[in-house]
């Protein structure tokens, strides 16, 4: 399957493997990491960003593609909707059917609220489903929530909001227990001890997993629970705008039936934005590990309603996206491959870094290897470095790969690459939106009443870089909290008259700033269809 040139490089990797296995590569110093990031991380490429012209974050920078959507108008300006006709009337409206949305809906239902999920694809079509490696929680004897806090705070460049990070680490064991009691099958020893490994930047082995289907196992369990509870799930229906009442509080959302093109009005006492990430905006032309619907819709809705963004300029490029073959270009190769012992090796078979540095450092280091150092492996579609997977079988014994990372084995086997016997080629892929809408500790936005945010759409939990296994954790912790808080708040909300006046005000501001993209947002789906004319 590999080209002759790649096969030559594989021979060099094989020749060096025995010596490489004996290495314990040095970790980089803080100064080394700093200068590496500034020189090679895509967040530092000025041409990938524009300045936000209006709204609470005016003057700050944002990825160009997200900026374009923020500077576009609502589709409802051209397509007015009669807010007098209410199609759905609920206590809690959850926008998004991923892990955060499902957790929120379950807890809101548990609290007795009338809750509904609306999602533009199906429930479970979300980045949660694709999270492979695991979920962190400090539940071992040598570990503590404070140690977890230190790892995440440092890994995120000391920028996380302390109140949010405190909740993340303190409520982590509870989140694992909740999932376990719902029936999630975590990897365990015969005596029940959780099998835990390292992730990049962790100082204790606290990565819990369900083979390399961790997110899938969590998501399908949550979905099953949502359906058992008979929580209404309106699929193939997107939220295209938040609705407010005359007092400026959020009061629902305008929905769009993705198949018929009809608009619907959902009135709700509280609304939870759980719309996930933005990988499908392909910042700086990167491929992405994200699902089809990851187009930052919730960020657009929230910002237009007046909610500030936080760290919108920091993006996570997962160091190991598949770089070959073309059919799986950009697909996630879980960090667990490195947790299990595979090292990153350049075209000459040299180990060029410790494989478990944090993701931003690791991605920048791979980019440096393939650019400035010219030690990348050339393929017909680009470049990459080797992830020397046969090391896993040598370290853990034959059969380790099939048992611990079956999804990875299957994905490459589809293209006749047997990762037990030969290395796989990787390059960074657009993976996660570190930033998002700003919330307080309870999950509410600080500026708009009755509006909550949970999951990847939130900014500030992780600071400027997220550790592996803290995202599956945050969707559960903050999803559950949002569901509980939204249900409680809904009991005291009296809604007034529905209005969309904020989208007109936003249009006016855009006009004043001289911005007119002539496109509408949110994007809803990426433009992948090729048209000859």
């Amino acid at each position, binding site marked *: 399957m590999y080209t002759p040139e790649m096969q030559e490089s594989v021979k060099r990797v094989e020749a060096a493997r025995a010596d490489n296995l004996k290495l314990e590569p040095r970790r980089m110093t803080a100064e080394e990491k700093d200068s590496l990031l500034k020189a090679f991380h895509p967040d530092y490429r000025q041409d990938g960003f524009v300045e936000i012209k209006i709204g609470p974050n005016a003057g700050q920078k944002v990825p160009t593609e997200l900026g374009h959507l923020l500077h576009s108008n609502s589709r409802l300006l051209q397509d007015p909707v009669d807010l007098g006709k209410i199609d759905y009337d609920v206590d809690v409206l959850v926008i998004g059917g991923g892990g955060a949305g499902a957790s929120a809906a379950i807890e809101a239902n548990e609290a007795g609220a009338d809750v509904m999920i609306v999602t533009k694809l199906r429930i479970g079509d979300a980045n949660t489903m694709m999270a492979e490696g695991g979920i962190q929680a400090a539940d071992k004897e040598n570990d503590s929530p*404070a140690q977890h806090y230190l790892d995440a705070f440092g890994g995120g460049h000391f920028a996380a909001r302390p109140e949010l990070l405190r909740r993340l680490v303190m409520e982590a064991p*509870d989140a694992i227990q909740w999932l376990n009691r719902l029936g999630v099958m975590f990897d365990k020893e015969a005596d*029940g001890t959780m099998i835990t490994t390292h992730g990049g930047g962790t100082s204790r082995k606290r990565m819990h997993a369900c083979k390399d289907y961790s997110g899938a196992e969590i998501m399908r369990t949550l979905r099953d629970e949502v359906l058992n509870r008979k929580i209404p799930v309106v699929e193939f229906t997107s939220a295209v705008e938040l609705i407010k009442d005359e007092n400026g509080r959020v009061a629902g959302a305008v929905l769009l039936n993705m198949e018929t093109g009809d608009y619907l009005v959902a009135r709700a006492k509280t609304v939870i934005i759980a719309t996930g990430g933005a990988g499908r905006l392909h910042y700086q032309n990167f491929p992405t590990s994200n699902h089809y619907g990851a187009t930052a819709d919730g960020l657009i809705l929230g910002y237009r309603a007046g909610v500030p963004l936080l760290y919108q300029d920091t993006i996570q490029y997962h160091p190991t996206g598949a770089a070959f073959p073309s059919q799986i270009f950009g697909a996630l190769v879980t960090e667990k491959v490195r947790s299990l012992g595979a090292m990153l090796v350049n075209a000459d078979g040299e180990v060029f870094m410790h494989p478990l540095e944090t993701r931003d450092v690791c991605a920048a280091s791979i980019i440096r290897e393939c650019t400035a150092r010219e030690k990348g492996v050339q393929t017909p579609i680009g470049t990459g470095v080797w992830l020397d997977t046969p090391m896993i079988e040598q370290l853990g014994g034959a059969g380790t790969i099939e048992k611990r990372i079956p999804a990875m084995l299957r994905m490459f086997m589809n293209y006749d690459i047997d990762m037990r016997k030969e290395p796989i080629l990787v390059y960074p892929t657009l993976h996660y939106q570190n930033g998002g809408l700003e919330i307080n500790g309870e999950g509410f936005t600080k500026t708009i009443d009755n509006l909550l945010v949970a999951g990847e759409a939130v900014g500030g939990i992780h600071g400027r870089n997220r550790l592996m296994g803290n995202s599956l954790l945050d969707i559960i912790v903050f999803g559950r909290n949002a569901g509980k808080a939204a249900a409680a708040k809904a009991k005291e909300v009296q809604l007034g008259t529905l209005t969309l006046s904020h989208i007109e005000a936003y249009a006016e501001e855009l006009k004043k700033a001289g911005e007119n993209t002539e496109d509408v947002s949110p994007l809803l789906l990426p433009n992948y269809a090729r048209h000859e004319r």
Partner: protein
Amino acid sequence: MEKMVDVYFFGKKYQVPESLTIMSAMEYAGYTLKRGCGCRHGFCGACATIYRIKGKNELKTCLACQTQVEDGMYVASIPFFPTDKRTYEIGELRPNQQVMMELYPEIYSCIGCNACTKACTQNLNVMQYIAYAQRGELEKCAEESFDCIGCGCCSLRCPAGISHPMVGVLARRLTGKYLAPEAKHLNQRVEEIHAGAYDELIEQIMQKPIEEMQELYNHREIEK
């Protein structure tokens, strides 16, 4: 110029580059996908697809995102499959054979044709995990079905009308909740946190100035 192949989407012919997956070939042909497209990386089961190669009689099942096009491929994606999920309160079930009999009695109508296994896009031994479910061997059923992504191709081909992925979900939840050994260290840590054992530690670390945090972080001991 890349080699092109003829494929037929819903019977209509298009010329597409041979390196593409079925999913990207549909987009190359001009389709904007709404149904039949989810994670695009083989984890969600949204893109269950059936196809037949012109001149051959075998009907095949696959995931559109994980399968490369072939010349003469007649393709139809499956926008939705009416899987029959039963609802239950997981806390009120017990992990035994009776549960399967009550919730999914149709599994006992399996005629052993193995069409489910042949249709599985993940190459799972589907008929085997249904057999485990019939016998109440829930842990084995859970393990054998673990890599199921719920695309529904098995159910599509089943003459007995079994909703295999739903049987697997039930077996896994019962296994995870009741049969797998308890993680005592987890339960203990949850209790400690609820009792306030870490409140002071976490408050202390939250109050530290950034310089001190940097010092702590850069010199923290990393477990081998």
